[in-house]
């Protein structure tokens, strides 16, 4: 009934005593996520939000049986925080931190893969399985349990789309923001494969943007491996080339990564691409009716 996080997620928050970590840990707890511990080096033995704080992720995992982490540490410490979570054996690692150098992420990814861990992000809003677990900063109030999987490179644009789905009575299995950086731990294909394998996801909304070729590769993957109904949206049709549009990964460089190419490719393999955000729900409703 979900991908990556659910009721069995036992979450440690790395950077829980920081401003963002503390605020969002509270929000996650309020949503009902099983947050079991926080980690801040040097504050081991204290408590935060009623949770035990540990000096290391290894200690937190050992003492609390945590199996997932949400990272809110400064950019300079993010790669090390991810590797610490990997080393502690956590299977799902969500890195919210933005501004992580690409060289750091290049170095982290082979370790993450070798350990068989799942990294989501960095520079992402995280993910939420409505009614079960919220890991990251997505607002809990806009989602509803259901059977549409949502995967997106954006933050607030995802909220916009999820909110429209919820208002239209289309609940979600899991909503996941994979992040806007050039190097990310989990991409569209990873999420599409997981949604396809999830017996309770019945349709997928995929929100891409300019930069890179992930959407094109996702289109090929869907054509070959996904039989769920999929609707796409691509942001940045009018973005000028060579300019970074906020996200580090959202840049048309060397003529590659344009919205037009992505939309064309998705169209080629038969995936409807909504022209504007408010058309996403109607396009989905054309090809998908939720089971009673």
């Amino acid at each position: 009934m979900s991908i990556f996080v659910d009721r069995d997620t036992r979450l440690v928050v790395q950077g829980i005593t920081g401003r963002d970590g503390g605020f969002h840990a509270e929000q996650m707890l309020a949503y009902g996520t099983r947050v079991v511990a926080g980690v801040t080096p040097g504050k081991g033995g204290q408590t935060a939000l009623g949770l035990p704080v540990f000096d290391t992720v290894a200690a937190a995992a050992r003492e609390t049986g945590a199996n997932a982490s949400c990272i809110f540490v400064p950019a300079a410490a993010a790669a090390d925080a991810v590797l610490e979570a990997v080393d502690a054996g956590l299977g799902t690692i969500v890195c919210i931190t933005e501004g992580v150098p690409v060289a750091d992420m290049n170095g982290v990814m082979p370790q993450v893969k070798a350990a068989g861990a799942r990294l989501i992000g960095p520079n992402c809003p995280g993910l939420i399985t409505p009614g079960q677990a919220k890991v990251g900063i997505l607002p809990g109030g806009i989602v509803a349990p259901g059977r549409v999987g949502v995967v997106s490179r954006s933050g607030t644009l995802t909220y916009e789309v999820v909110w429209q789905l919820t208002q239209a009575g289309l609940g979600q299995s899991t909503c996941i923001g994979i992040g806007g950086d050039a190097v990310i731990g989990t991409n569209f294909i990873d999420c599409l494969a997981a949604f396809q394998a999830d017996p309770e996801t019945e349709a997928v909304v995929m929100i891409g943007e300019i930069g890179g070729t992930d959407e094109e590769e996702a289109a090929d993957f869907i054509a070959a491996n996904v039989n769920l109904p999929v609707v796409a949206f691509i942001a940045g049709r009018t973005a000028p080339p060579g300019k970074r549009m906020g996200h580090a990964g959202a840049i048309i460089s060397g003529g590659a990564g344009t919205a037009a190419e992505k939309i064309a490719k998705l169209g080629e393999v038969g995936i409807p691409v909504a022209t504007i955000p408010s058309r996403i729900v109607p396009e989905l409703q054309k090809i998908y009716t939720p089971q009673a």
Partner: protein
Amino acid sequence: MKIHEYQAKELFRREGIPVPEGRVAETPAEARQIAEDLGGGPVVVKSQVLVGGRGKAGGVKLADGPDEARETAEAILGMKIKGLTVTRVLVTPAKDIAREFYLGIVQDRSRQRPVLMTSAAGGVDIEEVARTAPDQIVTTPIDPVLGLRPFQARQAAFHVAEGRTAAQMARIMVQLWNAYRRVDANLAEINPLIETPGGEVWAIDAKINFDDNGLARQPEIAGWRDPAESPPEENEARAAGLSFVKLAGNVGCLVNGAGLAMATMDLIQHFGGRPANFLDIGGSSSPDKVVTALDIITRDANVKAILFNIFGGITRCDDVARGIIEARRRADIAVPIVVRLVGTNEEEARDLLAETDLVPAATMDEAVQTAIRLAEGGAA
């Protein structure tokens, strides 16, 4: 971030890459002096602007000695290349060219690692080569932890050259990788790397672009930023922590989140309007940031209406509304402002806006259409 050729050459030199000597001149007299200091022989006078295609635009010229260098510098200094005024030229000895190669290291998003690209087709646009004759490019993925191993460099170099030239090229590849790695680059390029008739190898052009996320730990490089790279508004926005790109339209946009900001821009165009900018004001809604953003946007005389598109998420919309109202009070703005706020407490927010001259809207579509209408002189 980009830097100039002469700066990239300085970074290359530090790694031992053979770069012809040369200095930067800001006046024709300086250019003359440099040419003389270089021995009085033929030199190349190269405009230093942060755009491609300097050669085609007439910004790179050969000069046969100091006097011609002065004349050439006179012609190039002050030129406009793709909208940028040339204020500096690099004066460097001219080299005879027997062969031209291309060497470049660039971040490969799909492979999640840098790749070395090597080609015997140097001196031309490598993206063009990649499109038309991809087999002329040797691609070598670089292990992000191990780095470019010398033997990998040799394999690539001996694929496009031979003998001493290839051996030298292999050394330069490793030096190029060291430069790339040390400064958190996402592109480091020598195009062309030349072989002279006498068998010398020289990097006669140099380009490095940087990973913006790496600049925090590259204070020297960050200090090299040339404000001329971007319009002044973009520099100002960057300093304020805003992500801003100037466009040519008449609807100014303030949006939280880059994806939503792009979608807003697209939607304006979709409904026949013209966005004046891309602006992501980020997660916080502090009045200070909003004031700076409004200031930057309204300085553009083309802007005839302003659109706030904020998806509140966890932040309460009434707080955001209060921030906008406060910012609006502090900024002296003549054009109409449309505000669309979604999220927790959005009704309270709309009530607050109702007491102001801000124009509320419930959906993105409505907000964008209203803003376009107002920008074209219509009524709210």
